[in-house]
């Protein structure tokens, strides 16, 4: 996991984006937003067997002002949704959201009046992690994929054009309900 293994061979110089990306991902502090069963799996991921500390993420910041990542772990009820949005708003940029579990990703098995059907109705989500609850290894996998995403995020003007590219491709993308013929 050492930085030296990731650099182009022999060269210690890297672009500023690479350094910034590495700094951000290597000490990625989650905000405590454990709600239900997924929160327990998140706590065990921070525990001794599946140690999140090796990724620099052991400190679950209680104050969202000091956090980078909001892991929405659990089902978000109608009463909790404004609180979720307020915590998200209190986080400083740059911030990421990981929707842990099916309840956070899409409402899960609770397709009813009480649960927000996916936290992307409330906050923009960068990583969706299915599972009910997802195993700690699955959570670590999602976090590492998010680390990749963070590592490769661009800065400054490159970031603006990256955002424009992402948005145009999302606008032109085929809607899910029209992705037919995939089973053949």
């Amino acid at each position: 996991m050492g930085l030296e293994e990731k650099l182009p061979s022999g060269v210690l110089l890297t672009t500023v984006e690479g350094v910034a990306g590495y700094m951000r991902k290597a000490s990625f502090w989650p905000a405590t937003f454990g709600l239900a069963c997924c929160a327990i799996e998140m706590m065990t991921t921070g525990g001794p067997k599946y140690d999140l500390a090796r990724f620099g993420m052991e400190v679950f910041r209680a104050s969202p002002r000091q956090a980078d990542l909001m892991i929405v772990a659990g089902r978000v009820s109608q009463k909790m949704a404004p609180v979720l949005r307020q915590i998200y708003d209190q986080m400083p940029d740059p911030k990421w959201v990981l929707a842990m579990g099916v309840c956070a990703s899409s409402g899960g098995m609770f397709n009813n009046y009480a649960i927000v059907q996916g936290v992307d109705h409330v906050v923009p989500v960068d990583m969706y992690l299915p599972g009910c609850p997802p195993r700690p290894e699955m959570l670590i996998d999602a976090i590492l994929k998010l680390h990749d995403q963070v590592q490769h995020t661009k800065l400054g003007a490159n970031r603006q054009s990256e955002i424009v590219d992402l948005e145009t491709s999302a606008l032109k993308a085929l809607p899910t309900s029209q992705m037919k013929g995939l089973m053949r």
Partner: protein
Amino acid sequence: MSDRTQDPAQDPHLPVPQEDQDASTTVEAMGVREGMFGVRGTGDTSGYGGLVKTTLFPGASRRPYGGWFDEVADALEARLGATDLDGAIERVVIDRGEITFHVRAQDLPFVAQMFRDDEALRFELCSGVSGVHYVGDTDRELHAVYHLLSMTHNRRVRLEVGVPDADPHIPSIVSIYPTNDWHERETYDMFGIVFDGHPALTRILMPDDWPGHPQRKDYPLGGIPVEYKGGSIPPPDQRRSYN
């Protein structure tokens, strides 16, 4: 399945509630089930959609009840008789080893106090209130079910109160069993049963300004269709189902 109220004596399709010759129980019709396998409407060629069956709940039991039930009923009757409240207990149902006292709504606080204080009864712990919405039980749609536990005698009984939809008021027993504070708030929140005399009857589970009472049968489940690649599945209460 749909439920509609029927007078069992008049509808020729419905079976007449039977009374066993030697058992001491009756049955009570509360609503009707129509159809089977979730088949509905004109597309039904199987004929199952035309099935009609009355829902028969266990009805009033007759004395002797058996076991310690008689002791409890005697003690309660003695107390009620002493205060001229014999009509407070509408029905006693013994079913599956459990005894249920159907209590008249306005007499509930007195009955609950007797259950707690009388030496032979001594039901110290109330396990809470549960609301049930029986759509087919005209004029008694909303039931509040209280489970009482006697630790001294190691027994359990159930008190059930039925109130109509149009006037869903039940006197609160928080002054007798303080544990019912949140339970009554929850039953109010979910069913709309107003507990008169409760110190602070507000919503507890839903947001404070939520309209409607979610666990009533006329409140929809509230799901949304789920989008998949190339299709969408309707929410659970609107899907094709086999039951």
